[in-house]
């Protein structure tokens, strides 16, 4: 009686193929929906130009020695960390859009792995995150950014920031599924990420902030990821006193693991009840 439409496959294989199918679909969206790729390059570039030329002169004096007196050297690794967080807005909006357009209903009526839709979204958005990182490195190089370590360290930095971006994407999938409207989601995400971005060490060293803010600013995720990026791209001299490259890398991995541990189950739950 139970006429199963298709041969059942074991759970894990199923999860992998289903995630691959959804990832492919989302990548096609990224490439085909007009504006998605250009827009994920425009904002980082505006930030780079604005902060380098508007604030650059004012902050250089208080930079650590590893920045070689060039604000752009200090800024680019920090902004890469920040945009790993900011580009999550697209992830949340994409998820909400899938809900609004009925795609989630279609997927949830299919005999597919439950986790595949959120997972396919986070995996596909890694590609977008990588694209943003490369654009930032390229534009940075054009206006004077030079890394002070070697290619291997820079590749490690890229890998690390993608790990962080992946964990953020799980948080953003959850937000998108809970808020449900693609328009409202943008506002909600920026309310979440702007304070984190601007109370971090991305733009100015934490030591220049008021005392009450410093403890928070020094340990929040964007700061530690920015620290790890700077350590890996500029060397240990680029970090403020009390921070080590290994330390910030471990903090980054800890934050990433914590975000995935909290939000992967929440996202799956939100998806099931969407």
């Amino acid at each position, binding site marked *: *009686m*139970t*006429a*199963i*439409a*298709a*041969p*059942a*496959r074991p759970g894990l294989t*199923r999860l992998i*193929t*289903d995630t691959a*199918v959804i990832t492919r*679909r989302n990548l*096609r*969206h990224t490439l*085909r*929906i007009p504006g998605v790729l250009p827009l994920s390059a425009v904002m980082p570039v505006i930030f780079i130009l604005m902060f380098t030329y508007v604030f650059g002169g004012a902050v250089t004096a208080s930079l650590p020695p590893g920045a070689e007196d060039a604000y752009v050297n200090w800024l680019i690794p920090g902004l890469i960390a920040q945009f790993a967080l900011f580009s999550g807005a697209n992830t949340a909006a994409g998820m909400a859009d899938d809900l609004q*357009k*009925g*795609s989630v*209903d*279609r*997927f*949830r*009526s*299919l*005999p*597919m792995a439950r986790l595949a839709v959120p997972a396919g979204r986070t995996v596909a958005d890694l590609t977008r995150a990588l694209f943003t990182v490369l654009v930032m490195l390229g534009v940075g190089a054009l206006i004077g950014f030079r890394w002070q370590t070697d290619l291997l360290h820079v590749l490690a930095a890229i890998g690390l920031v993608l790990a962080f971006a992946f964990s953020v994407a799980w948080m953003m999938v959850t937000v998108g599924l809970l808020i449900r409207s693609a328009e409202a989601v943008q506002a909600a995400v920026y309310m979440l990420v702007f304070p984190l971005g601007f109370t971090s060490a991305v733009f100015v060293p934490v030591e220049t902030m008021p005392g009450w803010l410093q403890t928070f600013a020094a340990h929040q995720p964007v700061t530690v990821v920015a620290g790890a990026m700077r350590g890996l791209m500029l060397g240990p001299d680029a970090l403020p006193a009390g921070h080590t490259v290994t330390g910030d890398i471990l903090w980054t991995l800890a934050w990433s693991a914590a975000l995935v541990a909290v939000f992967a189950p929440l996202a799956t739950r939100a998806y099931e009840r969407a």
Partner: protein
Amino acid sequence: MLLAWALILVLSFVYSEMYLIKFTKGEVAMASIVQVAELRKRFGKEVTALGGVDLDVPAGGVFALLGPNGAGKTTLIRVLATLIEADSGTARVAGADVAAEPAAVRAAIGLAGQYAAVDEYLTGAENLEMVGRLYGLGRREARRRGEEVLERFGLAEAAGRYAKTYSGGMRRRLDLAASLVGRPALLILDEPTTGIDPASRRDVWDMIERLVDGGTTVLLTTQYLEEADRLADRIAVIDRGRIVSEGTADELKDRTGGAVIALGLAAADRDKAAATLTGAVPEGDTGLHIPAPNGYADLRTTVDALVAQGIEPTAVALRKPTLDDVFLELTAAAR
């Protein structure tokens, strides 16, 4: 001693046979592909979308859920398709409980929701290949079935275009096509022909009839009585979250009593006439329909009652009820 053993052996044999019989009976009862009992669902404090629905959809054929806007059709469909959970009651689809074994339910159904859920930035062919893959098919098989279904829905020529460029009716058909890629045992269609032109509607009807010939069961909702009359083997009328009547189209028509009086009246007289006659259902601005289980005798008493009130009908007819009459009578209380 030996006798005792023999007795136990015989008894246990009889018992197991009884069990077997019981079991086969269960299988026979499973001729229903959907079994719903006492299903309730509320949204917030105010809205009772399903107020205790009991429903039995036999395997094979077309079953239509007929009801006005807000009756609870989509809500019931969404519970059956495992998209939302009911507050209480049970629902089994293809033998599996929707709450406890959603995966088994999903493997047995194909769903086309009330609003087409196509992927705008994938082509028609890519849309169907994706759905096929998610049913667990290999890439080649998914592609092949996609082409086959596109062909069947007259979309072969548009297969390579983004669904974004499709007209509303083409999207609707692509959505229906997607629900068929997995060759489901139960096809669930929420208002399948809303928003498509009459010619395509006929195509969809033909397609549904061919599927049923191939052994698929179709559960569909509709607001079109004509559609239910033409397609459905059985019809359940749903109103305000309850099934108010269920049976074949003929059974439903008979339940209104075999005949209907259609009256034409001067607009000024209509409301007065409606108040005079029991069971009267307004039709347009000047019409009234009255059930007439006793045929001519009812016609006479009706006309006599009107004349006694000083009302002269402008037209009088006695005819067989349509599904419209049934529907209006059953859902009249809501108006």
